[in-house]
């Protein structure tokens, strides 16, 4: 850990979040379902007691796991998500009017995050035109475009957070990240779209040990790294097939 960049490495989740958390902040949390979520970071947020959070995350965890924990403690004020089906506490709080919810189509959510990180305040998409998602949004046509003429598009805006919680398979001390299989999902965009990006990694190596053509997230996007080799990895729907005899 003698490299200059090892200053990005923190000893645990609590210290990696120290000085960042404040009430009413906006947090992006990577993951799809329980796959690729930074659960040790969420645990530390729970312990901190910070509240009034707006959380941008495709899903809302399940009861007692990941964001489900922050719902139990009522630390979350608002969710921006595409699907929240697996969470009873969520439903209760929402129906009681205690939780705000903004649904985004999943691809629109992903692109809004990517746009925010890429300095793009807004973009147009056909997704959601003619549905409640399009209501009140700017509508535009592009009659001169050989590719895009003949349809209507709505304007969606870029997102930005105070803090992004990212789970990666491997990091080097510079913060260069590699994700594994479908645990990649929302993590790479979220890493680019927050004032501070904190990463939970399963494997931490020295700078130079990851092939530079195979880095998914360049270290410039990563502020703090926690090596969490024992972070839980859960399976939501275990489906298997029988072996042939």
């Amino acid at each position, binding site marked *: 850990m003698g490299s200059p960049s090892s200053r990005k490495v923190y000893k645990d989740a609590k210290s990696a979040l120290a000085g960042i958390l404040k009430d009413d902040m906006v947090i992006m949390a990577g993951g*799809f*379902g*329980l*796959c*690729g979520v930074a659960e040790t970071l969420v645990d530390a947020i729970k312990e901190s007691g910070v509240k009034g959070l707006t959380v941008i995350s*495709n899903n809302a965890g399940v009861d007692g796991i990941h964001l489900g924990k922050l719902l139990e403690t009522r630390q979350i004020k608002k969710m921006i*998500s*595409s*699907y*929240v*089906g697996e969470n009873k506490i969520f*439903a209760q709080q*929402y*129906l009681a009017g205690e939780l705000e919810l903004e*649904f985004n*189509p*999943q*691809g*629109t959510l*992903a*692109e809004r*995050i*990517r746009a925010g990180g890429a300095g793009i305040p807004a973009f147009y*998409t*056909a*997704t*959601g*035109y*003619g*549905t*409640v*998602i399009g209501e009140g949004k700017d509508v535009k046509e592009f009659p001169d475009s050989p590719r895009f003429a003949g349809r209507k598009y709505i304007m969606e805006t870029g997102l930005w957070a105070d803090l992004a919680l990212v789970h990666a*398979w491997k990091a080097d001390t510079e913060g260069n990240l590699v*994700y*594994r*299989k*479908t*645990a*990649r*999902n*929302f*993590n*790479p*965009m979220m890493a680019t779209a927050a004032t501070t990006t904190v990463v939970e990694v399963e494997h931490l190596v020295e700078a130079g040990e990851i092939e530079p053509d195979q880095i*998914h997230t360049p270290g410039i996007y990563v502020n703090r790294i926690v090596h969490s080799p024992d972070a839980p*990895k*859960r*399976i*939501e*729907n*275990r*489906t*298997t*097939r*029988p*072996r042939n005899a």
Partner: protein
Amino acid sequence: MAWTREEMAARAAKELKDGFYVNLGIGIPTLVSNFIPEGISVALQSENGMMGMGPFPYEGEEDPDLINAGKQTVTELPITSYFSSADSFAMIRGGHIDLSILGAMQVAQNGDLANWMIPGKMVKGMGGAMDLVAGVKKVVVVMEHEAKGESKLLKRCNLPLTGAGVVDMVITDLGVFEIDRSGKNPMKLIELATGVTAEEIRSKTDAEYVSAL
């Protein structure tokens, strides 16, 4: 008499062409992968960031980092690639997926589709459905023809839409319909399920259509 879920899936599988890149929704559409015709090779996309999805793993070989959009454990194939959700929906929104097969609560004769919310009930969210129907080249709906004795093929959807003018084909337990998204041509009945008559379909369908049997 009518088609079973498996027969509906088998009929939907006939829309697959060799070399297609395909996204299958949850429910009956998932069954389509069991009926891919001989000699036809397709790649299945999972919108959480995978092209070339393989079957469920053998017991004991489940990988928490390898799931499909239904959060089920799956496997990879020699053709598999992984990518972010942004790249996945760039692929979908950009019109690169050839075919999406998905379920529905209602389809209207103009191609409107409703499958994500019922007012007054807890809404789970649209997930990737709005992106898929807006972006994929061809959208095939597989659904029961009726729900509680009411036609699901309507003149106009009365549930909130997932997409407006997005459906190209509807396969129900009673038959197969084609829809011209541009609205230039009326909806057409093009096929009857086994043992189903044109009259039965007419009597059970709210939508207006012409017969092209």
